[in-house]
């Protein structure tokens, strides 16, 4: 028992320090520093607003389309940051791994937490624009909490899997770049689901990222959007599929990472 608390105490200390250092290093050398965490989503919003709300008018009938877009992109960016950043997290710390024994999952957790802090900062900007564009906050916004937990779990699960796989196969970095590009378009981020055929939309929404983004938009921005409920209607239990994918991915990734992490020191 004592050994157990000792072990997690070490992980906790290490995790805290790694997240801290990561945050210190993030905007090092830039004049505006941490302000960029807020400025980046801000400029992103301006671009989206000009391109999609003024010129392309993809949003059509969807109310508050720029905020709707920004929310989708912020959530997607979190997923990209965690997964793409983690691919080389283990290999990049090879020097450390070869010289000291520590729980390797801390490296992935640290990357995930840094991105999470960034996500929270982005939500400040989203909140700002929600007020600005008169988006009413309803009590259903509370659903965001389980949604964000789902997002956190799914992202970190993919991250665990990728980082461990990258130790063995260095192609993973490039493959993941391609996959994430494809997935960006396969997820209804830039376009509303109503634009594509109903059958395709029904399949796409089963992807956890699509489900999370659409649900988040539904509870935060507008009820006038397709979610897994509106698309599948009668099949109430179908929403278990994206959750199931998340859980299965998480368990499989954890098992794989656990098994592989013993040999990281020899293989990196």
């Amino acid at each position: 028992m004592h050994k157990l608390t000792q072990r997690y105490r070490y992980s906790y200390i290490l995790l805290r320090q790694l997240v801290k250092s990561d945050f210190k290093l993030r905007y090092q050398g830039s004049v505006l520093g941490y302000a960029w965490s807020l400025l980046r989503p801000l400029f992103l919003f301006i671009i989206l607003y000009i391109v999609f709300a003024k010129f392309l008018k993809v949003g059509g009938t969807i109310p508050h389309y720029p905020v709707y877009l920004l929310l989708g992109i912020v959530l997607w960016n979190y997923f990209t940051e965690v997964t793409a950043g983690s691919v080389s997290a283990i290999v990049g710390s090879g020097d450390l791994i070869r010289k000291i024994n520590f729980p390797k999952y801390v490296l992935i957790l640290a990357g995930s937490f840094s991105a999470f802090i960034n996500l929270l900062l982005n939500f400040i900007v989203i909140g700002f624009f929600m007020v600005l564009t008169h988006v009413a906050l309803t009590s259903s916004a509370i659903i965001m909490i389980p949604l964000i937990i789902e997002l956190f779990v799914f992202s970190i699960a993919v991250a665990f899997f990728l980082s461990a796989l990258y130790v063995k196969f260095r192609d993973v970095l490039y493959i993941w770049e391609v996959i994430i590009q494809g997935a960006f378009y396969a997820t209804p981020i830039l376009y509303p689901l109503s634009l594509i055929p109903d059958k395709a939309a029904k399949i796409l929404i089963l992807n956890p990222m699509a489900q999370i983004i659409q649900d988040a938009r539904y509870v935060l921005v507008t009820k006038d959007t397709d979610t897994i409920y509106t698309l599948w209607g009668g099949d109430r239990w179908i929403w278990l599929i994206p959750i199931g994918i998340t859980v299965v991915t998480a368990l499989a990734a954890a098992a794989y990472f656990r098994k592989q992490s013993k040999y990281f020191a020899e293989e990196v």
Partner: protein
Amino acid sequence: MSEEIAISVKNVSKDFVLPHEKVSSIKSIFTSVTKKRNKKADTQHALKDVSFEIKKGEFFGIVGRNGSGKSTMLKILAGIYQPTAGSVRTKGKLVPFIELGVGFNPELTGRENVYLNGAMLGFSDKQVKAMYKDIVDFAELERFMDQKLKNYSSGMQVRLAFSMAVRAEADILLIDEVLAVGDADFQRKCFDYFRSLKGAGTTVVFVTHDMDAVREYCDQAILIENSQLVERGLPSKVAASYTKMFTDQAKGADESSKEQKRWGNSSISYKKVSVSHNKLTSANKEITIKLTAVANKEVENPVFGFLIKNSAHVQILGTNTKIIRKDIKILKKGESIELEWTVPNIFNEGLHYIDPAIIHDGGQVADWWEEAAAFRAIKEDKTPFIVSPDIGLTIGSK
């Protein structure tokens, strides 16, 4: 209390799989499936069935040559590598110093690195804060703590790292040749620290080539050679085996490996080759080489000689009976002869080999025996040259 076991290693083996062609891209997985699986991976046995125990409070040395598996052993003790077979049990907080300053980030300031490295050693922010002043004082870096680590000299980095390392309140310390870095002053600091540990009941495992350090500090030691534990016990015994290993290696005098390295028509052949010192220190002014030969048939005007090579197989000196004009007229069948050569100790540090030879009738080789014997020269005042004789100097002033 002192009989408590701190580390117990049972039948530990470690294999590394070395694929001929590392399959590290997805494409090569497919191609190697289609190609036939004839590329069998080589397994390197880094350790074979090693068992030992270390008692609490012991200063324990692990010695061995490069590539013998001693560092692998240390990494297994540290939990960095997993043993392929066997088990390792440790008791208490273990801190490895495979390298000083693990996790130092050049982009962070000295202060931030102290906290980061502290976390690696298992200290919380609070604990680091409490000892921060001591760390900085010990490293003598007060003025530099808010500078980025990349602007530190390597000596400053080592000082900071060492200053962190000595704070680690470990029950077991694993040290891998940390002493090899740093200047004389720093090394002395390290030794002082080790001395203080000896009194404090810390178990120290120490991997090194330095037999003097083993003799001075260790209570127990093991020798690992060719992935196996070949000697254990008192450090003097282990250090002696370690030194002997090098002498034996080249001593062709053991009958075993003479074939390839010995040739000639055997009309006369050496029976015995011996040296007065296996280990030649500066106190020895000369070395005596004794050659005993016997004639298998009658030979006129045989020439006996030898040459000495250093560890790089450079021939550094040699002579024979013809050069020194001590001619031997005739050797009858069955007659034996003994030659005792005295060579001044001009040798530089390292292993030296003796090649005795017998030639007759203007160039026919009767016996040429490469590396028939060897000795090790030890010179405190090494020079980077082939030989290192005592050179006199008188300084006068006018």
